[in-house]
């Protein structure tokens, strides 16, 4: 795998930008896709947000100062894009974020790109009930298997706070899954 520093340098030079961008997309497309998919749930929406994320990265890479790592910078853009997408959807439909989550879960049952059984659907319902921060932390830790230090850099939160959020999220999800089973 290409070193991050070299990749950033190549991305910031017009002669090497195109090729370096292809490497960047190939390296991070899957990780960012799944991160986005867990927020927006639907494949088509995840695809839109993923493309917007990479386009934003492409347009702003010149201004990337290297104060944070490239991947955490891109994760941050992906998170913001996904959350903004949900907010603008809620605004368009003139509904609150809670109602939007209900609709998203309702659509999941009919989604051809969701093959989950009853327990997996229940898991999504449990995650949807979490506050935004706990939801992000749970997905990033449990499914994406990111380290607390990495999540801390992406979400710009203390490791202690993240651990507390994750612990609470797991407890709530377990409690929800135990209900009526």
């Amino acid at each position, binding site marked *: 795998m290409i070193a991050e520093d070299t990749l950033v340098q190549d991305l910031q030079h017009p002669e090497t930008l195109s090729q370096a961008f292809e490497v960047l997309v190939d390296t991070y497309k899957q990780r960012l896709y799944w991160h986005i998919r867990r927020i927006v749930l639907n494949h088509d929406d995840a695809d839109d947000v993923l493309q917007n994320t990479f386009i934003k990265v*492409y347009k702003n890479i010149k201004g990337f100062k290297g104060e944070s790592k490239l991947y955490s910078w891109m994760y941050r853009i992906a998170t913001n894009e996904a959350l903004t997408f949900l907010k603008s959807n809620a605004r368009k439909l003139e509904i609150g974020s809670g109602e939007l989550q209900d609709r998203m879960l309702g659509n999941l049952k009919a989604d051809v790109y969701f093959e*989950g059984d009853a327990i*997996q659907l229940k898991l999504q319902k449990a995650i949807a009930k979490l506050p935004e921060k706990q939801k992000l932390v749970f997905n990033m830790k449990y499914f994406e298997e990111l380290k607390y230090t990495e999540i801390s850099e992406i979400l710009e939160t203390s490791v202690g706070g993240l651990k507390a959020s994750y612990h609470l999220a797991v407890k709530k999800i377990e409690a929800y899954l135990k209900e009526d089973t």
Partner: protein
Amino acid sequence: MKELNNKNPFKTPEAYFEGFSERLMKKLSEKEIDIPNNEGFIVPNSYFEGVHKNIRQRLDAEDTKVIPLHPFKKYYFAAASIAAVTLVILMFNQNTSKEITFEDIANTDIENYFEDNWSDFSPYEIAEVVPVDELEIRDFMSNTLNDDIILNYLDNNTDEFEELNLEYDE
């Protein structure tokens, strides 16, 4: 005392200890509810292979849209900078003139202000807040007249002083 020590007041259900091991083993074999590791999300076939191509297409489409605007942009910037410099020069020149005072405000502006902002007040209500008692006739006149001018006017325009019905202190 001896009798008391030998008597256990607590009881257990019948055959409690006989069935204990069996019940414990049953409880241990019950599965803990785990959070699934697989969420059930899937993607279309070969989706990830086409991601870069799709993004590239969008970037190219955006680039071609932007190109024709560049020459105009230069003129906009030039025009904007000239306008900005002119504005700054004008502002500096204006700063040299004296400060705006109440005298500089046109009467019509004052009238318009009162018409727009005092429309809800009747003349009587306005009179209550304006100290009419302290006003002199001269406060309403743009030019003050001295006594000589007034006397000359009266000389020329009245036939008899008596007609004025002036009261003398004498």
